[in-house]
C-alpha cells in the first residue's frame, strides 16, 4: 500500500468503516510508515480536540429571550 492509497482511506479508518481485511492492510502500512502514522494520529487528535472543547458558548440570556419569543408566538394557538 502506498501513502496515497492510505490517505484515500484515512477517514474510513478514523471512522471505523473499513472491513477487517482493509483495516489490517492500513495498520500494516502504519507500522511501516512514520509519516502516515503522524498524519493518522494528529488527524484523530484534531477531531477529538474540536469535539471536546466548546469554543462557542451559549450567550447568557439567549434561552430566556427564546422562551419569551415562543410564548408570545404560541399565545394564539397553544395552551
Amino acid at each position: 500500500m502506498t501513502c496515497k492509497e492510505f490517505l484515500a482511506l484515512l477517514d474510513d479508518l478514523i471512522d471505523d468503516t473499513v472491513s477487517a481485511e482493509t483495516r489490517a492492510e492500513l495498520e500494516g502500512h502504519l507500522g511501516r510508515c512514520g509519516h502516515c502514522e503522524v498524519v493518522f494520529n494528529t488527524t484523530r487528535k484534531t477531531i477529538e480536540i474540536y469535539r471536546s472543547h466548546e469554543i462557542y458558548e451559549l450567550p447568557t440570556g439567549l434561552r430566556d429571550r427564546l422562551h419569551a419569543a415562543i410564548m408570545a408566538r404560541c399565545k394564539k394557538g397553544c395552551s
Partner: protein
Amino acid sequence: MAIIQPVAGELEPHPDVALVERVRAGDVAAYDALVRKYERQIFRISQHITQNREDAEDVVQDAFLKAYEKLDQFQGNSKFYTWLVRIAVNESLMRLRKRRTGKMVSIDEDITTDEGSVPRDLADWAPDPEQNYGQAELAEILRKTIQGLPQGFRIVFVLRDVEGLSTEETAETLGLSIPAVKSRLLRARLQLRERLSRYFHRRKTGKGASSKEKSPEETIPAKAGVEKQ
C-alpha cells in the same frame, strides 16, 4: 430505498418523538425541553456559519420559532434534531447573504483550493498538546483555525465531526451527495490538522526548553482577527 418499519422491542423510538407529539398536542413545556436539549448545538452551528455572534443568536431564535410553527410539517422520517439543523443551516446562510449583499453565498464557495489535501507538515505533536495552553487561549486558537477553513469544508466538519451527524444526514442537510460530503470531510480534517500543527508541534528539546515554553510566533494576540475568506 425500502422503508424499515420499527419492530416492537427491537427498535426503541427516539425520545424526541414523544416530546414532539406532546408539543403537537399543545404542551409548550415539551418544546422548552427540546430547546434546552439542542440550543447549544444550534447556536454553535449558526456561529460557525455566520461567524457573527448577533446573527447566530438571531438564527437560534428564528430556527426554533420556525420549527415550532412548522412542526405539523415535520414528517418524522428524519430525526427532529437533523430537521432542526437543516432549518438552522438555511437560516444561517440567509443571514450571511444579507450581510454580504450582492454577493452569492453558498456552501460551494472557496472549495477549489488544494491546500492541505496532501499533508506537508509531518512533524509529530506533543503528547496532549492542548495542555500547553490555557483554556481561553486554546479556544481562541481553535476558533481562529476553524474560521480560516473554506465555508464548504467548515460546515461539513462541524456537522459531521463536532455535532455528530452521520455522513448521510450531513449530505441530506446540505443538499450534497455522499461522495461530496466524504471528500470535503477528508480535506477539512487534513487542513485543520495542518493548521493546528503550527501550535501543537512537539517542542524541540535541548537548550533547556521545557514543554511549557512557547516561542513568540506561537502565542496569539488577545483578539485575533477573523481570517477573510
